């Protein structure tokens, strides 16, 4: 029996996976599309459909994020508009590259390898952050990141034309185009929204203040997500059923995840998030190895590592949130002598 062209098992998997991804990324403040594309690849969707559907999911979550953060504070609209144009050019080039790689029969391999590197990198960054948080607790030092030397070097370039930023600074159009175009290329090539690289690129390379970088990244991301969906939609490479099911779960999960940030300490779960990314990376590597060996025997292990680790960390957040609510209730309940515990 099939519903909307999917088996009931897949239908439940997509809604529940969307929910868990929503919890995770509502909690950690990311879009989560970079878990969707590799999962679709493991489930044997063609690379272009996996990437197109990942971008469409990112667009849907961006709309929800913009609605949630309608008061995004500072948005540099001029920079956002320029970024939208260069991001769109990058996405278009990335998508053409994917269709070219598909024609050569190596799109799934290239995308898979890119994800292995990307997720392992993000996992390593989060594990490093967990490690520095531990250190900071011991030494009580400020762990705010300074702008690295390479960022300062790039910001110092004054190749005309120079663009005035709302924050008062100025940035070379070449720097903006290079940073935005590269992020767009990665987005179009592997189907991620790219918020986790776009915001740092705006902050570190273009040099806007952090609050403006967040708002401008959100603004540019919404439109580039729409453009990415349009580009892949033109070739019919977006599975609307899958995207819709994922969004149904994700919109609810994101609410619960973002509400949990007020009652669960991020430092308590950040190390598990880092490990989840590393497990996801290993899962995709195993899937690629299985494809190379021509066996489907390892597919179950890949799905277990990728989807299972996401479920485990999301359930951990939900468990900690429920435990915190339970503790608060117990404290608020009046004692027999009339006072609060």
């Amino acid at each position, binding site marked *: 029996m099939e519903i909307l*062209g999917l088996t009931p098992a897949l239908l439940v998997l997509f809604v529940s996976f969307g929910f868990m991804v929503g919890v995770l990324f509502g909690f950690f403040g990311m879009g989560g599309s970079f878990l969707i594309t590799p999962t679709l690849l493991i489930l044997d969707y063609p690379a272009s459909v996996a990437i197109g559907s990942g971008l*469409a999911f990112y*667009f849907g979550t961006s709309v*929800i994020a913009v609605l949630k953060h309608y008061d995004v504070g500072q948005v540099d609209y001029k920079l956002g508009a320029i970024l939208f144009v260069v991001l769109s050019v990058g996405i278009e080039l990335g998508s053409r590259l994917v269709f070219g790689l598909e024609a050569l029969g190596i799109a799934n391999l290239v995308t898979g390898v890119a994800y292995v590197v990307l997720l392992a990198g993000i996992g390593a960054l989060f594990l490093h952050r967990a490690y520095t948080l531990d250190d900071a607790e011991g030494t009580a030092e400020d762990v705010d990141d300074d702008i690295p030397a390479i960022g300062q070097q790039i910001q110092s370039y004054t190749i005309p034309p120079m663009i005035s930023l709302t924050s008062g600074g100025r940035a070379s159009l070449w720097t903006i185009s290079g940073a935005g175009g590269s992020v767009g290329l990665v987005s179009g090539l592997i189907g991620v929204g790219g918020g986790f690289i776009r915001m740092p690129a705006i902050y570190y390379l273009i040099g806007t203040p952090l609050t403006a970088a967040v708002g401008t990244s959100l603004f540019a991301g919404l439109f580039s997500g729409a453009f990415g*969906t349009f580009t892949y*939609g033109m070739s*019919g490479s977006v599975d609307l059923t899958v995207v*819709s099911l994922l*969004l149904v779960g994700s919109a609810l999960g994101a*609410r619960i995840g973002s509400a949990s940030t007020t009652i669960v300490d991020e430092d308590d779960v950040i190390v598990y998030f880092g490990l989840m990314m590393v497990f996801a990376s290993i899962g995709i590597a195993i899937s690629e190895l299985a494809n190379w060996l021509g066996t489907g025997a390892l597919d179950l292990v890949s799905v277990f590592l990728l989807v299972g680790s996401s479920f485990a960390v999301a359930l951990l957040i939900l468990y900690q949130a429920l435990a915190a609510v339970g503790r608060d209730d117990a404290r608020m309940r009046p004692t027999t002598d009339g006072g609060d515990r």
Partner: protein
Amino acid sequence: MIEPVALPAPIQAVLLVAVILVQAVVLYAGYGVVERVATPLIEMITDA
């Protein structure tokens, strides 16, 4: 997969973007209403 009717590719792609946009807005608003209705109900049940 939901198959769109036979329209030119750019129109189909624009419709796709519009459908996802509307779906996201409806989900955001819908879950917001559910949250507003459910929260007092849950509090009432747990306080009883």
